[in-house]
């Protein structure tokens, strides 16, 4: 699980072009300036590519924080 967390953090840093990003389960889009609706699309695409998974449309809308994203990634990866 830690691995997924670390990989997600480095993806966030690269996509949002901000090396200071630290993710916790409670982090939401409100906590990170660069995480706007457009970059959210970009993030989702890169997460899908990186982990070799595909989310459903409904899932993408449901996430409230990073913890739920991690759960979804973990679930899809199985």
């Amino acid at each position, binding site marked *: 699980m830690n691995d997924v967390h670390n990989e997600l953090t480095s993806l966030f840093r*690269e*996509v949002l*072009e901000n090396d200071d990003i630290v993710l916790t389960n409670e982090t939401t889009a409100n906590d990170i300036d660069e995480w706007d*609706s*457009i970059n*959210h*699309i*970009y993030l*989702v*695409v*890169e997460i899908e590519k990186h982990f070799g998974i595909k*989310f*459903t*449309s409904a899932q*993408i*809308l449901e996430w409230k924080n990073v913890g739920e994203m991690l759960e979804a990634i973990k679930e899809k990866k199985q």
Partner: protein
Amino acid sequence: MEPILSFRTLQKEAKKIDSNTKEIRVAVLGNHTTTFFSKALKNQLTVAGFDAQIYESDYDQIDITIIDAASGLYDFDPEVVVIFESALKLKDKFYAVDDNQHRAQFYTEVSDAVRNRISLIRANNSQAKIIYFTYELLDDHVYGNLFSKIPHSFYKQVWKINTDILNLSEVEQDFYVFDINKYLQGISDYRDWPAFINSDLHYSIDTFAVLTYHITQFIKALKGSFKKCLILDLDNTTWGGIIGDDGIENIQIGALGIGKAFSKLQKWAKELKERGIILAICSKNTEEVAKEPFEKHSEMVLRLKDISVFVANWKNKADNIRYIQEVLNIGFDAMVFIDDNPAERDIVRQSLPEVTVPELPEDPALYLPYLTSLNLFDTASYSDNDKDRTAQYQQEAERKKLISSVTNMDDYLKSLKMEGVIESFKEKDVPRIAQLTQRSNQFNLRTQRYTENDIKEFMTSEAHLTYAVKLKDKFGDYGLISVIILEKKADNSIFVDTWIMSCRVLKRGVEYYAINTIASDAAGMDAEIIVGEYLETPKNKLVADLLEKLSFGTTKTDHIYQLNISNFKPFKHYIS
């Protein structure tokens, strides 16, 4: 440089580049979320060496942006306007039309709107080049395979709209069609449906990276940077096998072995040659052995007459390409080198980084599809003269032989029996003149790029004098090789706006021939001085001292020169 077709890699690569100097201003107008498209375009242009500014219109506000003379679009003053509409949006609009009779005429509504957009942009005084996307051939599968018989089927309407847009581009100046369909074909998952439903993202973000790569190729061509020469290796590139070992009967071309792959590549090279791309050979071989298939093999598509410079020896390929460059007198960045051997490619890449060296796939069956996918030979102009270029360069090679047999330059020039014509611009020469302003980089005093429309304006302008020079000699006809545009100023002076000459006629005295005419015309108009300016670029060092050679004197201002007409003494030359 291999094309970057991933959005994220593109972002990374563009970040590494910080100081480009070639400015370009591009406006992007779309009816869908174009944020990623615009970002990718900026990044592709950056990677291609441009300092790019992008203007993005508000979401789905194309017409309002174009109509409003006070909109940010015109403030931005773009050189290029890209109009990119999504067929998914088009479909919504089509479905909103409620009867079949009107649906059958839907395409005229769309193409009228396109025409209208062009004229509004022009009416608002923008001469920007317009790049218009075709519509994705999106079948809604309502009429299945009967679509072509049903005038009100959506799929048929899309075809008709695209046909109208294509036809429009034949007659509209500075209006270019970008066909999205040929690029979508090559992309698996070109649309991300969840992202479309959630975020109005009509294409996946990597699709935008691919599309903007190809737009950038075209913008480069519009800005005068495009490929002029294809250099081919021979063994296992132009034919299968090794001519020196296998012999002429056993090399694979046409029916033999996988010869078809090589024949197809040759056929493509030949078509490019017909368009005006110069072909050269660079091979490690004994010259006679290497030439034999070109002369004797019945299935060779390329023949010696198709090749402008044939280099087969055992020297380093980088040196041989330098030699080809000298003969052709074009930039290294205008050359593409194709070789199956990774080591040879590497040597050339390291010594001549400006030459484009594609990473050829291992399987010859993939050579042609790979090379065409790179869109290397994109162009923004074409004229009928282009196809004669091979003969012109072969004539040049003969002239080079002659020059080595005479020792005195004057005798040599006399022996060429040159005949020139210098006259103001003629209607039939407009495409060639515009093309010279677009593509000449070296003998170009101020590197002003002009469209055919611009040229026509100079022709009718009271304030301008125009000169086009044509030249022939005993070896052949060069056609129109020099363009000069002068501007009459209020203070009885004349300013040299443009002075361009094709490098094929360097050192023939064409510039002296021209200045004699210009000075006598100027004297006839009671002008007192001619003012010239040298605008330096990385490529036009050749003309740094042109004005001084033409007896212009320096002034207090750097790069500004002037010629007092009353003191002018005509130059000697050998053009009659």
